[in-house]
């Protein structure tokens, strides 16, 4: 039966139908829903791994054992798991292994705009690229066939617009696949003597995959009436091209983006006057065409930054662009994402900013501590970079930064790749203060469980890693826990740990205010008569507090009852008793 399905859910459906039995992933926008969706199928074992490297290695183990396996991640997650990728490319697989990677052109929720297609070429593994949900199902299934036929892991490349768009699909039935495990050291033990023999296998495999690409249905040509131009494209760019051009120009749609066909592209180029490549981000198809010695129009016309749209493609092809609608003359203020009302990170950042502490930050909701009015963060690079960054910062200044610098990292990010940084702090003895903001969930990607939450992907209770014990075990002697809603306690802890002559960890612990089990207090009460308009409460950047004109026109602090969770942080700031916790018995 036809249904509307999100691109990521469609990937999960394809995995399910292909008989995938093992899934290990780390959440990351826009890839997260693939694994959330596959977890709903009881036939499939699915888990959140602590990071993408662990996920990929686990998926490899499952493939080796003879079960079709999958690991999913966002583009930057593929950097984390690049190490196993480049060598699993040599070993090949037993049962099929598919690696899902979702790029984020336009950086809706990412720290860079990398083009993951380069990994396919660099690691010498095939990459399929669906353009809608129906293709997501079909390509996930095809990826397993290719994986087993050509003895290779296969990359399944998504992007924000394919991952997060619903389109019409017709789900099919599941098959079961199982391969016997046979010991094969020459294939699976990659030490130099064996790897030397595997590398030629990999190069030969790519050549046979090119032959496959020449005749594959997923690399199709859709003829057009006007051969003055022919367009090679893939993924969401294909949709924009067809939206704009319809059946006017011939279009070659590449479903397998690596390796690409050679003869097929040459023949297509010969059939049109001007060869145009429309692809988001880097020159990849275009570079391939240039390698084939073809004259091609590409990145000198189409931008290498940001995502495309139909109007952009129309404009660059010199075609009709619709007139924009009317707008008001007033400047429209931006509405950036903010920390939610009741967010436990807010008060921590207020305290750090107030004490003018240098904050080496990390990836998560708490990156929003960088935004005014808190503006408390100095750098954010990648998952785990806070602790190692603070270590380098502290060491480099030979004591001058001691007592003035902290690393801030979330519970999930700490488990992902913060631990190794902390080991380095302990081992190489820097006087680094690490603050783990433990909100008991992976927040930014939409509430996924992690090793510190005591729950697994399927929602069942499981082993809960104890952060205090873990930090002490790696050699940190000073470990303490604070409640960030308590401003005084938090400030005291930060000052004491910064003053201490050795490394320390402060665990700032309070569950995310959006978690269903978290009970909110009644909204904070406000008294405009007592408010002296000092605006101290505005310094925490809470969306529930605003300055509103009273009867006499004076701006006074008021609380939005629909947003306020009664966390009470603002009441601790007000010196005049204008903001108060609501009495429970009312």
């Amino acid at each position, binding site marked *: 039966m036809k249904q509307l399905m999100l691109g990521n859910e469609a990937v999960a459906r394809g995995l399910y139908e292909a008989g995938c039995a093992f899934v290990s992933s780390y959440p990351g926008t826009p890839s997260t829903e693939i694994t959330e969706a596959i977890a709903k199928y009881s036939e499939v074992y699915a888990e959140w791994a602590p990071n993408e490297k662990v996920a990929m290695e686990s998926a490899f183990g499952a493939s080796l054992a003879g079960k079709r396996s999958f690991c999913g991640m966002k583009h930057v997650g593929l950097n984390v798991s690049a190490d196993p990728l480049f060598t699993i490319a040599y070993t090949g697989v037993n049962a099929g292994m598919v690696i899902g990677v979702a790029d984020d052109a336009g950086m809706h929720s990412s720290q860079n705009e990398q083009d993951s297609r380069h990994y396919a070429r660099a690691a010498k593994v095939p990459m399929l690229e669906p353009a809608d949900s129906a293709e997501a199902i079909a390509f996930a299934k095809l990826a397993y066939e290719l994986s087993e036929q050509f003895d290779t892991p296969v990359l399944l490349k998504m992007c924000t617009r394919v991952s997060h768009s619903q389109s019409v699909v017709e789900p099919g039935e599941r098959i079961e696949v199982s391969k016997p495990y046979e010991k094969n050291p020459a294939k699976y033990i990659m030490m130099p003597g064996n790897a030397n023999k595997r590398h030629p296998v990999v190069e030969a495999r790519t050549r046979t995959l090119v032959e496959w690409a020449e005749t594959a249905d997923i690399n199709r040509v859709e003829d057009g009436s006007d051969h003055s131009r022919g367009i090679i494209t893939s993924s969401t760019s294909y949709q924009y091209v*067809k939206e704009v051009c319809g059946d006017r120009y011939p279009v070659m749609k590449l479903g397998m983006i690596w390796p690409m066909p050679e003869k097929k592209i040459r023949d297509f180029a010969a059939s049109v006057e001007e060869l145009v490549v429309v692809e988001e981000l880097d020159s990849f198809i275009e570079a391939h065409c240039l390698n084939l010695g073809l004259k091609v129009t590409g990145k000198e016309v189409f931008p290498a930054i940001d995502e495309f749209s139909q109007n952009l493609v129309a404009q660059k092809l010199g075609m009709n662009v619709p*007139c924009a*609608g*009317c707008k008001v003359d*007033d400047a429209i203020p931006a509405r*950036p*994402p903010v920390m939610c009302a009741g967010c436990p990170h807010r008060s921590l950042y207020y305290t750090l900013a107030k004490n003018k502490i240098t904050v080496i930050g990390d990836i998560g909701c708490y990156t929003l501590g960088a935004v005014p009015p808190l503006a408390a963060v100095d750098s954010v690079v990648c998952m785990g970079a806070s602790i190692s960054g603070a270590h380098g910062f502290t060491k480099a200044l030979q004591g001058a930064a001691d007592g003035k610098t902290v690393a801030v990292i979330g519970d999930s990010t700490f488990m992902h790749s913060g631990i190794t940084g902390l080991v380095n702090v302990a081992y190489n003895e820097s006087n680094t203060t690490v603050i783990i903001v433990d909100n008991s969930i992976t927040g930014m990607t939409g509430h996924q469980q992690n090793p510190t939450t005591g729950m697994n992907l399927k929602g069942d209770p499981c082993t809960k890693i104890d952060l205090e014990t873990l930090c002490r075990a790696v050699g940190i002697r000073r470990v303490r826990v604070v409640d960030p809603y308590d401003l005084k306690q938090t400030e005291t802890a930060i000052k004491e740990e910064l003053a201490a002559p050795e490394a320390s960890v402060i665990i700032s612990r309070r569950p995310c205010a959006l978690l269903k089990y978290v009970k909110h207090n009644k909204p904070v009460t406000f008294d405009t008569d007592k408010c002296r308009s000092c605006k101290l409460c505005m310094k925490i950047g809470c969306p529930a507090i605003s300055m509103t004109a009273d009867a006499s026109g004076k701006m006074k602090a008021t609380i939005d009852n629909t947003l306020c969770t009664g966390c009470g942080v603002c009441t601790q700031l007000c010196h005049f008793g204008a903001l108060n916790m609501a009495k429970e018995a009312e």
Partner: protein
Amino acid sequence: MKTSNIMIVGVGGQGSLLASTLLGRLLLTKGYDIKVSEVHGMSQRGGSVVTYVRFGDKVYSPVIDKGEADYIVSFELLEAARWTEYLKKDGKLVANTQQINPMPVITGAAQYPENLADKLKAAGINVDAFDALSLAEQAGSSKAVNIVLMGHLSRSFDFTLDEWLDAIEKSVPAKFLELNKKAFMLGREA
């Protein structure tokens, strides 16, 4: 049939995903090709959010571009003003008059434009602005503002009332069905 384009815009957390789910369900039963594009992740968190709903014989692009929207349904007035360039010349803006201050306004770094509903009209936009929040509260929950807006939008389409109500039934939990049906009717009659 030419592709029709509906944008649903608002503030993260206002419930625009339910509105697009409802539209998707309804359009699927009518046999259209459909694409619905959503925003997840960082963009939510109280930020500006937009959902694109497109349907017709064959839909290619998952997004709607400037000058293409037949309808913009806005949950918040500033968000309505932010996206009007996406309307077609004869497109229509269905807007909730609710105002939610963004952080730059809260901190005093920017001003929320005054009399925005009037300015939208004066700019030549076909705007149908009404207080959907009050109607949602009247139906029993401020959270039903999404269904009130869908009720109001429903007047612009030929689908029968039963078809809309059937889609609501498939999209909301049973215990909230009556509330949502009431919200839908209040919006439809507003």
